């Protein structure tokens, strides 16, 4: 089936819906989403969204910018971080006007809480910068933006899965191909402008906070179409996932006063971050947890430590962290009011992704040459505001700030440009992929391959990495790639074929994993979330630059582009 829209947005999480809200009523816009929009993973974000409102104590956008740059271990593009910190304030106010139910101060303003790495006066101590709604801030953002999109009468294609991105030979984006999951039918979306807002790929790892749907669809499809990916080696592990399950327990637990303790009961962060303690950035806290475990100070010698909330007033736990309390009670049978909570780092967020400029335009090379008509925003994109490590609450800021900017730029673009003709047989690749998976009569099960992939990534591309481990990983990925060509699925029907969906997603995960492994092997330094045991120091002389990895006919090709530095010269990072 053929559709024609001025603008097509793929993904209905925070970034996609924020962009849609800019375009709705101004041009003909459609949102395609693999899930019902309210199921998007933005809804799982918990603790807050940062903006230097200064509602409860002095704060300035430039402090937020500095924290973002330092938190990202100076790999952040500072022009983008400035946009993020400045426009966060405006974006939060806009969300409030659209109905976002923020927690309030006694005088009725938006309340703010502490969060990891957010400081006053360039690192002096924690600052209350995170605006929030209990511990369901992401849920409220998703609801508010979906509600706003309904109010503005955005056209939705729910449960449509993108399979291909349409680019002309001279590099102009002309639309996407998607599958209606309910019927299996392919749809061609002809567009002047396309926004990829497809989220992350946490499902490349075994223990993750990410939804089953977070399989890097947009990132992988862009990669397949020859678009380079930026900084894929930087993947964040959130310190506090529920042991073995990976379910997120927000940093707000520590923002409200929670403490991490090792098996001996020690507040071990005193040794790693004497000023910010448990509110140090996530990369440092996750590494510290593993260092404690490796030194035999995990709980009972095992691979977990405690999150301790028992000293907090019960009403703080019940009213400010209600969902987390519910998770701990449901999945662990423990009560955070009186029990210690077993936690381990959980794969959480991709700093890297599809390279874009500050207007969301996807760029294709070291010189930031944009692809006409193609945009990306949110976790699938790399602006780069998170550099080597994202600060807590900055993902939601990223969504609303850059989703909004991308939407606005797209509006100008669609007004000034005409439709490009579609390539001949625009859906041939998507059709071939679907038919191949449905008809292939191999011996490999998708789930088996996926489990092996997740295990290998966890072992060799997790919090600690080595050259040898990454080479072993590459070999494993090569083997999995071969075995992927020999899969067989049980389900041959067209109606809501989720086994087909999962098989396609496994292909996406493999692409993401290959990009991560190659980028991580090449970067011989440690910076932010990328920690090489064989190169434990940050090396600004050689590595203060962004990785670009592209798939070419000759294999994966690496190149690098400079980091934009405007206000803050790189310094050693201590907290």
């Amino acid at each position: 089936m053929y559709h024609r829209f001025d603008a097509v947005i793929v993904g209905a999480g925070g970034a996609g819906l924020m962009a849609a809200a800019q375009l709705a009523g101004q041009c003909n816009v459609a949102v395609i989403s693999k899930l019902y929009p309210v199921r998007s993973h933005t809804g799982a974000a918990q603790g807050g969204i940062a903006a230097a409102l200064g509602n409860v104590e002095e704060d300035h956008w430039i402090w937020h910018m500095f924290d973002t740059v330092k938190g990202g271990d100076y790999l952040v593009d500072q022009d983008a971080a400035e946009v993020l910190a400045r426009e966060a304030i405006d974006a939060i106010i806009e969300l409030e006007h659209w109905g976002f139910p923020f927690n309030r101060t006694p005088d009725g303003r938006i309340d703010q809480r502490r969060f990891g790495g957010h400081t006053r006066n360039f690192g002096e101590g924690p600052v209350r910068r995170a605006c929030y709604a209990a511990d369901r801030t992401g849920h409220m953002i998703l609801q508010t933006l979906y509600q706003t999109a309904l109010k503005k009468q955005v056209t939705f294609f729910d449960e449509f899965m993108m399979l291909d991105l349409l680019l002309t030979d001279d590099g102009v984006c002309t639309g996407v191909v998607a599958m209606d999951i309910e019927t299996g039918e392919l749809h061609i979306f002809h567009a002047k402008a396309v926004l990829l807002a497809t989220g992350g790929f946490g499902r490349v790892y075994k223990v993750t906070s990410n939804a089953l749907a977070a399989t890097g669809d947009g990132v992988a499809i862009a990669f397949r179409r020859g678009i380079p990916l930026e900084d894929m080696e930087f993947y964040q592990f959130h310190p506090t996932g529920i042991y073995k399950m990976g379910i997120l327990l927000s940093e707000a637990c520590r923002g409200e006063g929670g403490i991490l303790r090792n098996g001996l009961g020690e507040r071990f962060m005193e040794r790693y971050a004497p000023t910010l303690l448990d509110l140090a950035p996530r990369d440092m806290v996750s590494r510290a947890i593993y260092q404690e475990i490796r030194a035999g100070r995990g709980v009972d010698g095992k691979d977990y430590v405690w999150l301790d909330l028992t000293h907090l007033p019960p009403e703080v736990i019940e009213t400010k962290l209600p969902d987390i309390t519910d998770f701990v009670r449901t999945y662990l049978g423990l009560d955070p009011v009186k029990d210690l909570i077993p936690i381990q780092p959980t794969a959480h967020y991709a700093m890297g992704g599809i390279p874009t400029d500050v207007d969301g335009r996807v760029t294709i090379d070291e010189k930031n040459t944009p692809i006409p008509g193609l945009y990306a925003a949110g976790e699938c994109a790399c602006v780069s505001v998170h550099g080597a490590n994202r600060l807590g609450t900055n993902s939601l800021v990223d969504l609303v700030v850059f989703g909004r900017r991308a939407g606005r730029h797209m509006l100008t673009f669609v007004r000034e440009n005409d439709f490009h003709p579609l390539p001949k047989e625009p859906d041939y690749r998507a059709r071939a992929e679907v038919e191949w998976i449905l008809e292939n009569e191999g011996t490999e099960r998708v789930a088996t391959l996926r489990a092996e992939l997740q295990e290998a990534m966890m072992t060799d591309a997790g919090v600690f990495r080595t050259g040898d481990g990454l080479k072993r990983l590459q070999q494993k990925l090569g083997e999995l790639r071969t075995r992927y060509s020999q899969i067989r699925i049980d389900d041959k029907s067209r109606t809501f074929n989720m086994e087909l969906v999962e098989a396609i997603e496994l292909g996406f995960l493999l692409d993401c994993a290959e990009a991560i492994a190659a980028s991580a092997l090449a970067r011989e330094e440690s910076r932010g979330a990328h920690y090489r045991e064989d190169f434990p120091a940050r090396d600004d002389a050689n590595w203060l630059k962004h990785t670009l990895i592209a798939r070419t006919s000759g294999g994966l090709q690496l190149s690098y582009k400079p980091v934009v530095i405007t206000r803050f010269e790189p310094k050693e990072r201590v907290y």
Partner: protein
Amino acid sequence: MQVTLRIQRFNPETDSKPYYREYTVEVEPTDRVLDALNYIKWYQDGTLTFRRSCAHGVCGSDAMRINGRNRLACKVLIKDLGPKITIEPLLGFRIIRDLVVDMEPFFAQYRAVMPYLINDEPPPVRERLQSPEERALYDDTTKCILCACCTAACPIFWTTEWLGPAAIVNAHRFLFDSRDRAAEERLAILNQKFGVWRCRTIFNCTEACPRGIQVTNAIEQVKRRILFEQS
């Protein structure tokens, strides 16, 4: 431990009506029902079809009938159910396949109550003010994840066309928000014969809500608003 899941199956391409199939799986007592379903799908029978995403009770994808009660498969642990588990799709919706039902009518009910903030007064430069007490009035109903557990548990909904609990919960969320200005229009919708008056306070909705929302209470608060403001 070993558990047997008796699951209602239906594929419109091959089946004229739903039937049950049993699967036996080895699970941990602390596993979620969703883990058992995934295990079946991944390693025993790839044709078993259900929705799922976040796997920890916040996205609302995997609402289904588990031993006769509407629950999220990712929020129920095996140990709380025992060795025999029956799984069926939500009642009251067209079955697309197996445990996947057509949610479109559900979202149409949601859209019918104008589920968005309406306030045409020019907004201030900064945030609109709202006291913590005003904010608390609608806190409970902001928690809704639109999973449909409540609506599909309502006996009135099974037999009669009406808005259903979830839509009313979402109307409540705006009716009790001090920033909203469209109470009159919303109450007019809710006062129609397919509106709140179809509720017989059966409380199935409240019992079914995986977010612990006091659904029946919210419906009653809306009824009171209509009685005291519209009459």
